[in-house]
């Protein structure tokens, strides 16, 4: 986990809120499948006190902010060479902005900024303009140490996302996954933008299926570290591990309840592989499925009223739905002979899963009302184990192509595929954290 830097003190000044919240306009409708990338210009930052030796910071801020915005997949960062005016020279306040010069190159938004350096102290001012309407959308001032400039940039990127999409981005989230090497698998985690990779377990055993708790404090996983496939929970703050289920037979962790107090698990303790609710306080288990077939990979709907899971009761593995009590079981997928790994969209009745399509596996999305599945992954090779981001705008998944395995993130419409971890022999089971508020 990335540590808070106590020394970093941000003064966030809302310079001018030109648009009252009640009238807030959503500039980018991310959930529209046909959404075009939003054209935004980011100018070089103005060296406000002409600090000597800090000239390189001017393009550094523009480049870093541009790259940070680009990672979200929502923006078209306009090339600075195409700019018609030097806004840093003209001034970065509203009265200095040459709005027509920005609309002329196709920009809909403009980011300007300035910095002043004194010793190791840095003051950063950032402004976001709607150049079509000619007004300031958000302005912030940050003060801190010069080493903390990247965090300041990410913080302003979060502000831009709130202003333009109605919601902050995912820069304070992490993705955990199991990585395999030399017959051993361990749990790793990495930031949304692929930075700060950490190894969370080191058992030299088979350790799989991490699931992040909704409170962000715990990670459940399966490990053979004590000989049998048992369930464990890692307390991420205290760095302690507790074994929560050991039956001498197979136990798999799955979905956490919204209050992080219960967990859906698969266990073969009573014979066949069935789905249970495990009460974490007292270890009590409530059996939900009794079919002699394999029932595995359960996931709660966001309201907790339904469960999607995989069963081979019909002869091949398919996605099924049932009520939270275990009743009213109905089959959801009918296309293709192998549909597994369901992940319920955090805000809608859509389920992402991995389905066999054309001899390989791809990430599909299907409404729980049924209908035709939409294949969202389109890059070559085999794509599997989908996990939604907490805002439902992205899917983390594992891509296997050309003999290499990688953990990737794509926008929910399948665009903007980014590799967030590679280099191990194989990866499985990415899981997305909630907002951890480290930016």
């Amino acid at each position, binding site marked *: 986990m990335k540590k808070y830097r106590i020394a970093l003190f941000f003064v966030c000044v809302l310079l001018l809120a030109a648009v009252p919240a009640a009238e807030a306009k959503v500039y980018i409708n991310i959930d529209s499948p046909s959404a075009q990338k939003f054209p935004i210009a980011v100018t070089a930052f103005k060296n406000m006190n002409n600090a000597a030796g800090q000239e390189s910071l001017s393009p550094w801020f523009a480049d870093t902010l541009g790259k940070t915005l680009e990672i979200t997949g929502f923006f078209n960062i306009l090339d600075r060479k195409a700019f018609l005016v030097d806004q840093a020279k003209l001034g970065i306040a509203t009265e200095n902005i040459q709005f027509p010069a920005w609309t002329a190159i196709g920009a809909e938004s403009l980011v300007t900024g300035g910095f002043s350096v004194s010793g190791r102290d840095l003051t950063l001012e950032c402004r976001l303009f709607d150049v079509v309407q000619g007004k300031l959308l958000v302005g912030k001032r940050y003060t801190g140490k010069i080493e903390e400039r990247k965090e300041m940039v990410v913080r302003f990127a979060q502000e831009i996302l709130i202003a333009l999409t109605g919601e902050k981005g995912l820069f304070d989230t992490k993705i955990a996954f199991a990585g395999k090497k030399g017959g051993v698998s361990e749990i790793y985690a990495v930031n949304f933008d692929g930075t700060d990779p950490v190894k969370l377990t080191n058992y030299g055993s*088979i350790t*799989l299926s991490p699931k992040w708790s909704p409170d962000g404090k715990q990670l459940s996983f399966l490990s053979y570290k004590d000989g049998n496939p048992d369930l464990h929970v890692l307390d991420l703050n205290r760095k302690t591990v507790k074994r929560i289920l050991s039956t001498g*037979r197979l136990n798999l962790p799955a979905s956490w309840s919204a209050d992080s107090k219960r967990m859906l698990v698969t266990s073969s303790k009573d014979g066949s*592989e069935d789905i249970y609710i495990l009460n974490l306080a007292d270890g009590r288990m409530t059996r939900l499925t009794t079919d002699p077939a394999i029932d595995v990979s359960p996931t709660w709907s966001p309201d907790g009223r339904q469960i999607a899971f*995989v069963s081979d009761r019909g002869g091949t593995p398919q996605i099924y739905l049932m009520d939270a009590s275990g009743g009213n079981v109905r089959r959801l997928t009918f296309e293709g002979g192998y549909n*597994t790994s369901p992940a319920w969209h955090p805000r809608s009745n859509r389920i992402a899963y991995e389905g066999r399509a054309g001899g390989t596996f791809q990430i599909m999305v299907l409404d729980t009302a049924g209908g035709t599945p939409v294949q969202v992954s389109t890059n070559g090779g085999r794509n599997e184990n989908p996990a939604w981001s907490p805002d439902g705008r992205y899917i983390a998944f594992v891509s296997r192509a050309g003999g290499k395995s990688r953990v990737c993130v794509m926008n929910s419409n399948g665009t903007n595929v980014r590799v967030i971890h590679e280099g191990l022999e194989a990866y499985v089971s990415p899981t997305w954290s909630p907002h951890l508020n480290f930016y």
Partner: protein
Amino acid sequence: MMRYGILLAVLMAFVLAFTLTTGCSAPKKATKEDVTKAGTKPAGPSEEELARQRAEQEARDRALREQALRDQEARERAERDRAAAEASRLKDLSRIYFDFDRAELSAEARETLGKVAQLLKASPGKSLTIEGNCDDRGTNEYNLALGQRRADSAARYLQTLGIERKRIKTISYGEERPLCSEATEACWHKNRNATFVYTEK
């Protein structure tokens, strides 16, 4: 008349038995006397005679040692052969294979399991761990369940053949312990198995 006949026969048998016993004991006495005479013989053997006797004794000892060594080697060879035969038998009885996404036992698998049952019946001290494995196609979590199912399906069949359930442990490794990693049907087939690990109690 008849009674006299029996009496006479018994008497004759008695006489004959006495005569035979005496006749047998006579040569034994003579032998003992000979030994006594030889032990008290005053004159010792010559130096050559002693050297010859020593050499003969050494040759006999050497022959005995060599024989013992040959016997030992033979025993070890037999033990090695037996262990090899056992290992090869266990190797034949180390794995059964499955079809893609299936846990049903093939005729071949049932035949192997029949031999496994015989082996377990013949060696009551042995216990068995059945490890369920899958090829890497399909989903890792589903494959963990499928591996458990494969191991259970072998365990259940052994139970029907009269093996006590408590002698069998099952564990699934899903697709986590492949024997090979090529994307070929031959390799996938190899990885879809239940592996038998025997342990002495």
